[in-house]
């Protein structure tokens, strides 16, 4: 029995995106409904898939019914199921937020949004390295459109940097894929892993070079130092729901790093074994430090949040960089938390900024926001969660990460930077909160304030606030169901760290045998 649901998160956005194109000249309500319906349906599908993956084996979907490794295959393991689910939920919420007016600021927002979803989901599902390239391009091109949506000088400039860097990145990606194919003669990731394990020593340097070149590309996507400079401007200047959605984009880079370097370049991969074992951790730690510096040094809540995204990538990859099962499980717990919370912070920042006519999200005094209690509560919740303070999800994730990496060589560094970074976050967000909510100007205090004194501050309707609130509610839920989630994370990490499962699911038990032997059994 073929589980067609697996391609649901791909075909549905594609179809609905197309339907939205056909409705280009219709009233926007129709496009909104189509988009929201699509996101909702994808969410339902991904939840079903997630539950299937909890107890079930790794599922595959062979497109065109060609035998692997010849046809393109989609692979659903626990990690990809989780990523799909996170994406769907986040997308639904961001779209709901965007439907309150952001989508009117330019053309074709809803279609691009669906294609964005398609690209991200494809990157999570595909088991073929060239197909990964294709989905990356879908994801990136849509993201270019979304980043630029609405226009404006700063946004366009930031978008242009993002675009050009990634265009060069795409070329480099192809070079990496090309080398892999030229040496190993296949594109299927499981097959690549098998062939990598059997590759002769004279191809070692070439294959490792391919792996590292690809790493440069993934690092750019994930925003790893020194390839993260595009992010603060791009995320800081784009529209809020897009920035919120993009909280998942860097995670795609992280996911792919996890996938590729735990499968093709896994510890059992012969000449390619453990390629990133020495590289990832230091790079991630420096990223974490730079992100923390940015968080501490920024004078605008949106930029702070953008740097928080960089920090979260640094944290994730530092933990993943230990390449231990438990640590990866911890990263899997941290990932949804950080994705949802940074996204929430982008939305909250926008809600705040819209009620501060002069200062926006800048850390300068302004007149009081229109709904201080509501916005204060939202901000506080997001800040507590992001700062890693209990009782919200950041705390659990942090404890788990610290606990699980404690035996690795880099533990003191990870501990120091994660905790120190947490403190800096706390300081920055505490300062932000007290400036925005407490350090107020009387309505006629300054020149600018006087100018806009009588401009009405918009009052947020419940529907404006609802998406952000829903995102924030996820945090306590992650804690309350922490037991289940950590259990799931360990199971997911099992699939990730042991490439044999994946290979067996894709190529069958015979082909995974060599790898099993080289790893000395299980």
């Amino acid at each position, binding site marked *: 029995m*073929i589980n067609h649901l697996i391609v649901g998160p791909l*075909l549905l956005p*594609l179809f609905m995106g*197309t339907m939205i194109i*056909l409705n*280009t*000249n219709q009233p926007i309500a129709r496009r909104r409904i189509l988009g929201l319906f699509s996101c909702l349906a994808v969410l339902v599908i991904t939840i079903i898939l997630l539950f299937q993956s909890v107890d079930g084996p790794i599922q595959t*979907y*062979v497109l*065109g019914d060609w035998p692997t*490794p*010849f046809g393109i295959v989609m692979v659903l393991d626990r990690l990809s199921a989780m990523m799909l689910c996170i994406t769907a939920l986040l997308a639904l919420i961001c779209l709901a937020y965007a439907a309150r007016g952001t989508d009117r600021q330019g*053309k074709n927002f809803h279609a691009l949004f669906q294609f964005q979803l*398609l690209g991200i989901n494809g990157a999570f599902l595909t088991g073929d390295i060239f*197909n990964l390239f*294709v*989905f990356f391009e*879908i994801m990136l*091109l849509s993201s270019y*459109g979304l980043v*630029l949506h609405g226009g404006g000088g700063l946004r366009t400039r930031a978008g242009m*940097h993002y675009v050009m860097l990634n265009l060069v990145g795409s070329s480099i990606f192809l070079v990496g894929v090309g080398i892999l194919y030229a040496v*190993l*003669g*296949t*594109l299927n990731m499981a097959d690549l892993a098998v062939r990598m394990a059997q590759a002769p020593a004279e*191809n*070692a*340097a*070439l294959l*490792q*070079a391919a792996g590292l070149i690809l790493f*440069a590309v993934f690092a750019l996507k994930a925003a790893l130092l*020194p*390839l993260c*400079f595009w992010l603060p401007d791009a995320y800081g200047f784009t529209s809020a729901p897009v920035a919120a959605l993009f909280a998942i984009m860097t995670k795609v880079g992280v996911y792919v790093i996890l996938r590729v370097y735990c499968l093709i370049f896994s510890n059992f991969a012969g000449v390619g074994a453990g390629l990133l074992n020495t590289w990832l951790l230091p790079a991630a730690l420096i990223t974490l430090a730079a992100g923390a*510096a*940015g968080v*501490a*040094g920024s004078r605008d809540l949106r930029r702070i949040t953008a740097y928080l995204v960089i920090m979260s990538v640094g944290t994730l990859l530092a933990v993943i960089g230990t390449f231990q099962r438990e640590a990866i499980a911890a990263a899997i717990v941290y990932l949804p938390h950080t994705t949802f919370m940074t996204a929430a912070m982008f939305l909250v920042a926008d809600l705040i900024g819209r009620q501060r006519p002069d200062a926006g999200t800048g850390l300068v005094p302004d007149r009081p926001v229109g709904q201080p209690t509501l916005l204060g509560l939202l901000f*506080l919740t997001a800040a507590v969660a992001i700062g*890693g*303070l*209990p009782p919200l999800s950041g*705390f659990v994730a942090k404890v*788990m990460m610290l*606990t699980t990496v*404690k035996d690795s060589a880099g533990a003191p560094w990870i501990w120091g930077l994660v*905790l120190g970074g947490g*403190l*800096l976050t*706390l*300081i920055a967000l*505490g300062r932000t909160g*007290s400036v925005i909510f407490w350090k107020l100007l009387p309505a006629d205090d300054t020149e600018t304030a006087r100018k806009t004194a009588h401009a009405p501050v918009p009052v947020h309707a419940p529907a404006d606030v609802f998406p952000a609130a829903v995102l924030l509610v996820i945090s306590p839920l992650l804690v309350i169901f*922490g*037991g289940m989630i*950590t*259990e799931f994370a*360990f199971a997911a990490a099992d699939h990730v760290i042991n490439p044999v499962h994946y290979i067996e699911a894709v190529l069958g038990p015979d082909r995974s045998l060599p790898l099993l032997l080289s790893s000395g059994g299980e």
Partner: protein
Amino acid sequence: MTLALIPLLPLLGAFIPCIFHNRNLNAVSAGLIAAISLILLLLQVPQVFTGDMPVYTRDWIPAIGLSFAFRVSGFGFLFALLVLGIGLLIVLYARYYIAKEDPMGRFYTYLLFFMGSMLGIVLSENLLLLMVFWELTSISSFLLIGFWRHRADARQGAFMALVITGGGGFAMLAGFILLGHIAGSFELTAVLAAKETVHAHPLYPVTLILILAGAFTKSAQFPFQFWLPHAMAAPTPVSAFLHSATMVKAGVFLLALMVPVLGGSTLWFTIVTTTGLITLVFAAYMAMFKDDLKGLLAYSTVSHLGLITLLLGIGTPMAVVAAVFHIFNHAAFKAGLFLLAGIIDHETGTRDIQRLSGLKKAMPVTAVLTLIGCGGMAGVPLFNGFLSKEMFLAETLAPGLTGAWSWILPVGAVLAAVFAVAYSIRMLVGVFWGKPAQDLPRSPHEPPVGMTLSPAFLMAVCVLVGIFPAFFAGPLVHAGAGAILGPDMPAFHMAVWHGFNMALVLSMVALAGGAVFYRYRHRLFDAHVWCSRYLDGKTLFESLVSRMVQAGNHVIRFLENGSLQRYLFVFISATLVLGAIPFAVSKTPLLGTVAATPLDPVTLIMGLILIIGAVATVKTHRNRILSIIMLSTVGLVVALAFTRFSAPDLALTQISVEVVTIILLMMALHLLPPTTPKESSKARRRRDGLLAVLAGGGAAALAMAILTRPYDTISDFFLAYSVPGGGGTNVVNVILVDFRGFDTMGEITVLAIAGLIIYALLHGFERHAPDTDEMGRPWTKDRFPMILVNITRPLLPLALLFSAYIFLRGHNDPGGGFIAGLITATVLTLQYIASGIVWTRPRFHFDNHVIMALGLILALGTGLTSWALNYPFLTSTYEYFKLPLIGKFEIASAMAFDMGVFLVVVGSVMLMLVKLGSINSEDARTVSTSVLVEENLEKETH
């Protein structure tokens, strides 16, 4: 479960007061919740006082060792009692204290939240759970201190408290994780029993220091003491709560809790004792000079916390007993004193000791109550503080202490006691005695009874305990200390009179010395002004924070300078370095073993033309149109190369794409400046050139490495199954539409997205093109040259036929939907070039969005039909038919898919070009909006 409810009730019920708009309801609901919690706590009395420890455990997140576990030890009970008891009193007091214009509901919400957090700390059975509540107190105190949000000092105080205690919390978290790791469990009972293991572990010092950092920051121990006085910006009931029974006491609670597992080592003794002693003396000294009543009390609090810390540092059983007792005593008198200070503030409008004077006439009750509190604070006999302080003095003289400690401790203790007496006298006498003050903001009188009730109760406790310690405090202290010490619990008897001993002498010295100090305080004040400049931790803190912000700003401005050139340089260099490392590190040869194929002169010369073309593109790049022409050469030769090496499909595609790209580039160039200014410095050009040469060299080496290596590919499968499986002889096309049809699906999606974005970017975008060319020549007026117009007319059907030909044969010969689509799009473009948008657009009146969408749907639909037959998406089928006259022909589902590709290509390319062409022409924009199209054509026709 009852156990868990004690902290959870206030926590979960915190929002309740907030929902009422009535001040009484606010207070009653808060009080009710606290009272229920208290009752639940008191239900544990029978067990606790018989030495049992009720425990409630539920798994929560076993993966990290977090469980939902509570316990009521005697010590925890003592604390919980303080929290709830004082909490209730404060609920009552605040009802009268909080002004009408302040949001009382919110106040009680924060208060309950805080109460619950504190209860959680003292009742947790799991270290991580304790940590959860620990940080909750940081958050809730942040909110409480900043309650008066409009006040700058409140904001700063709250922020500082959050950062210091929160930061300490992070350290403590690390310490707890290490501790749990060493002990093998996060359950407190297990951890506390693991003393030997913990002490023997190499990480013991680190663990200890981290945990102490958490405790010391929370308890405002030196050098973190400075946040606490600034937290006085909070409303007085909050201060009373924070500084007596909760917040700051959490630190000493934790120290006491950890004594059984971490205590008993030299390290513990050295750090804790030293810190306690310094804090004790220093804060007591500072308290003397505070004019603000609350400031005085705050430093006094810090000092008393130092005292408790010192006791716990000494760590002997009796010291622990003394510490527990003093915790209780201090809570009582300090809470009362804060409330009294609040009353004074409330009734007179000031807390300045300098301004206040002679209040005992107007406020006799308050004066008496303050007298009791100050007595306790100063350690005067018959008040509770005396008893525990005397025990403390006795411990500093304990014979176990050797070396320098044997005299430093008692000296320090006495000195601090002297200061304490002095500031206590100052508070009492300075405010209530002397001439009644005249210029107070309000005329003083006794507060409402409800407001006096709370301090009166607390002062009664002080007196009763001071006189009948064994009866009123004995069991509590016994249970509390017993819980810490376990079998080491010493036998002791609490009484006012212990006989004449050294401790009593020291107490008397302190009382006398204090009186003297108070008498000559003015001289001290002068000296203090001089040194206080160096003692303000707040200034230091603020400069630290602002320096940190600046440093962060410097770092990011250095890293993220907004220059794309730099980002790209870094990116390309990084890739280059990463790619080179494996070759540098390993000794495997770059080149493989496959022999090179012979080179023929034609290929050589075409290769040279390509190289020259590429270099010329760079050389001429400042003259943009010239550069485009050079680039075309490269594109052409690449197409020739594809042909040379057996890839006709690629040649077709390359050449078509290239021309469309060139057209796009020229269309953009019309609006962009025609030349690139020379603005890069020579150094930069050299640097870029070097990187370019390195990258090119690396790339060439990589290509050589590949071309000289053998490989084994999955392609044999495609060659073998193309005809039998895919029904086509053009293997490349079968791969595209069948074996890897999903890639193609994605590829056309990319094209469609590009169309959408370009449409979005250019919608409503207008820009005027220059009126002359770059040399200043006017444009020709002949917009649509006749000869071209007349040639393109018959060319269109011919080219479309050709396009159909390319499309139909694609499955078996070079060609296919994509190339056919590009041909169609370019010949349509030719119509636009010849006759203009205004003429052409109405004749090709389909909405390009719709064409694209239909293409996508067709491709998608083709893929989906296989679902009906229960095959995966995109499973293809084909069939050969034989019809009379026509002969054998094939219908493959892949053809429908390819048709989708065709439509998407046509739609997106036309969308791009027409939109791009409309930027500087209003007519074109008008005609491009599809609604008008039909009308336009109609108008023209008639």
